[in-house]
């Protein structure tokens, strides 16, 4: 056995040929807070990788006349003044392979879940120009989130960028996690990028995904709150590089950036340390470009260019509901719509706390399946009218019948759209429930019995409207025959429904 090892080693050493080349080097002038000022390195490119004596990696960001400002992507405590810094001639890249699925990696693509190394034969650059116009295709296939209010009113399509925005503790991450959990068997690889989150929160999330069997198609990229700002800054780019690797194989990918407010703060820290001039809210001038170049990489490619898509769900945390702050307005304008979550709704018990009036999806409706479009068409309007009338309703009971009816319908719609966490609903069941709601079958059911009615109806319809279910899940279209069957099923069910 030992002979065998020696033989192998000898062979490997014989195969090894050392490469001799002239290397560009510089010397550390100063080092502080994850940043190093380096002299020399005359021909270095912007975003080029450099290495320090103990193997630490850095990226050249500021190219000045005599010095180079480098962000350090590892522990910087061992780096000293005068240390030699080598240029590598390469733009920062991460190792990648299919084996990364199911793993938790750091911002450099190195596994941190204690399950051993990820064998990889390829590398992908973390910074890349977004695909051009000719390679793209418009959004037309849905991402089923399993959340009724989103699938019905603010649908998301493959290749779309939909912002999830709201104050702290309003259920932003919950929407992202529910969406991942609902992707079982949907041919969608999920990437969750955690930026500046507590490690305990990430651990909880990972356990939840493992329990739900979602890690079989998910990658987690983590840059925790305890890490220096440079790692937080590159984490989303690492995430999208992993996504591009899968998209290049023609696969559909969903990427969640949780959250970009912390990302912008990390970038502000780096910029201020590099002495770049601060602008509004002390963010540097290129903070818009920071996010636009990241989110533009989400796209749907046409068949000639290999197909595949990247759907992005960036998350932004607002302070006291202020969506007019610098970063929220930037990201709102970059994305194709937003899901706006509100604290007031959350505490009223309306969860997910989506504000239907302020939330939009600019391209998603073309990706919605026909059946859902048919049943959810008037829902948004119903809800908007309900919110308006709700204020009047408090003044007294002198309301005409039409208004009363609208109020009752609105109450029931709000009730139907409530949904607990980790309980995604199949698209077919959503269609059945919303059909019953919009066609008025629930108008005479007491509001407090609505949930019970919904659950029983779905169970009954699954048994008795099999043809309709098959049609929706396979062809996704809405036919008159299907509608007739559904109508009959609901009527039959209603006549036998006795609330407990």
């Amino acid at each position, binding site marked *: 056995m030992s002979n065998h090892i020696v033989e192998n*080693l000898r062979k*490997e*050493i014989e195969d*090894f040929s*050392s*490469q*001799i*080349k*002239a*290397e*560009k*080097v*510089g010397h550390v002038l100063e080092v502080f807070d994850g940043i190093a000022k380096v002299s*020399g*390195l*005359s021909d270095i490119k912007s975003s080029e990788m450099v290495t320090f004596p103990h193997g630490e990696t850095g990226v050249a960001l500021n190219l000045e*006349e*005599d010095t180079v400002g480098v962000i350090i992507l590892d522990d910087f405590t061992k780096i000293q003044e005068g240390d030699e810094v*080598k240029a590598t001639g390469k733009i920062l890249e991460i190792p990648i392979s299919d084996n990364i699925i199911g793993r938790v990696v750091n911002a450099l693509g190195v596994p941190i879940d204690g399950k051993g190394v990820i064998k990889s034969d390829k590398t992908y650059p973390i910074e890349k120009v977004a695909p051009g116009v000719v390679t793209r295709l418009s959004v037309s296939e849905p991402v089923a989130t399993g959340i009724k209010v989103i699938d019905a009113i603010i649908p998301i399509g493959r290749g779309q960028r939909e912002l999830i925005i709201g104050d702290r503790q309003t259920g932003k991450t919950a929407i992202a996690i529910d969406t991942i959990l609902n992707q079982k068997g949907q041919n969608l690889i999920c990437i969750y990028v955690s930026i500046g989150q507590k490690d305990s929160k990430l651990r909880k999330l990972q356990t939840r995904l493992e329990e739900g069997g979602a890690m079989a198609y998910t990658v987690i990229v983590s840059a925790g709150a305890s890490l220096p700002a440079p790692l937080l800054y590159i984490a989303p780019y690492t995430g999208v590089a992993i996504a591009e690797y899968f998209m290049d194989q023609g696969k559909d990918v969903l990427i969640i950036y949780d959250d970009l407010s912390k990302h912008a703060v990390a970038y502000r820290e780096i910029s201020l340390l590099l002495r770049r001039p601060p602008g509004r809210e002390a963010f540097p001038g290129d903070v818009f470009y920071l996010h636009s170049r990241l989110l533009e990489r989400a796209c749907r490619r046409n068949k000639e260019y290999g197909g595949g898509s990247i759907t992005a769900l960036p998350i932004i945390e607002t302070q006291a509901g202020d969506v007019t702050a610098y970063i929220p307005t930037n990201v709102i304008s970059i994305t194709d719509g937003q899901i706006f979550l509100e604290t007031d709704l959350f505490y009223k018990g309306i969860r997910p706390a989506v504000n239907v009036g302020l939330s939009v999806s600019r391209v998603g409706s073309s990706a919605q399946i026909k059946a859902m479009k048919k049943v959810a068409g008037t829902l948004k309007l119903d809800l908007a009218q309900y919110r308006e009338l709700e204020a009047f309703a408090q003044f007294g009971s002198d309301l005409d019948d039409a208004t009363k009816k609208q109020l009752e319908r609105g109450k029931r719609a709000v009730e139907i759209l409530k949904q607990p966490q980790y309980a995604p609903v199949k698209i077919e069941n959503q269609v059945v429930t919303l059909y019953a709601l919009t066609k008025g079958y629930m108008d005479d059911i007491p509001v407090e019995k609505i949930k019970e009615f919904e659950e029983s109806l779905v169970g009954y319809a699954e048994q008795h409207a099999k043809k309709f279910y098959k049609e929706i899940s396979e062809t996704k279209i809405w036919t008159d025959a299907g509608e007739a069957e559904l109508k009959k099923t609901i009527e039959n069910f209603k006549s036998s429904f006795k609330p407990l």
Partner: protein
Amino acid sequence: MAIKKTVTNNDIARAIYLYTKDKTGTHLKESLQNVIKFLVRQRLLSKSKEILELLNKIINKEEGIVSAKVSSVEKLNSKTSEGLIHFLKKRYEAKDVVFEEKLDSGLLGGLRVEVNDEVMDLTMKNKIGQLQEYLKRI
């Protein structure tokens, strides 16, 4: 209004070079005194070390001189140094090569040549390091 531009150490070093370039004897002495006066007036004496270093680099570049730092375990024999001079002259298209030799037993063997910010590491230590990296990877 003219745009106020920051004057860097490099600009000053270049100005000194151009000002003193073709001067000799008393002219040169006078000019150098003027340079010192200028540095004192502009409170740049604290930067004199960096300016001098840059001036040295500019002179070397303009005159076609390559200054190389060579580290080795033993003193170079004449054949090696001649070969090295020939190689460096060709690589940097230089007229002259100036050596600064340094002995370092930690290199285990071979040479390490530094020219400006370029390094050619032909030492045993570097090769062993590369082999170590290679074996780690497979």
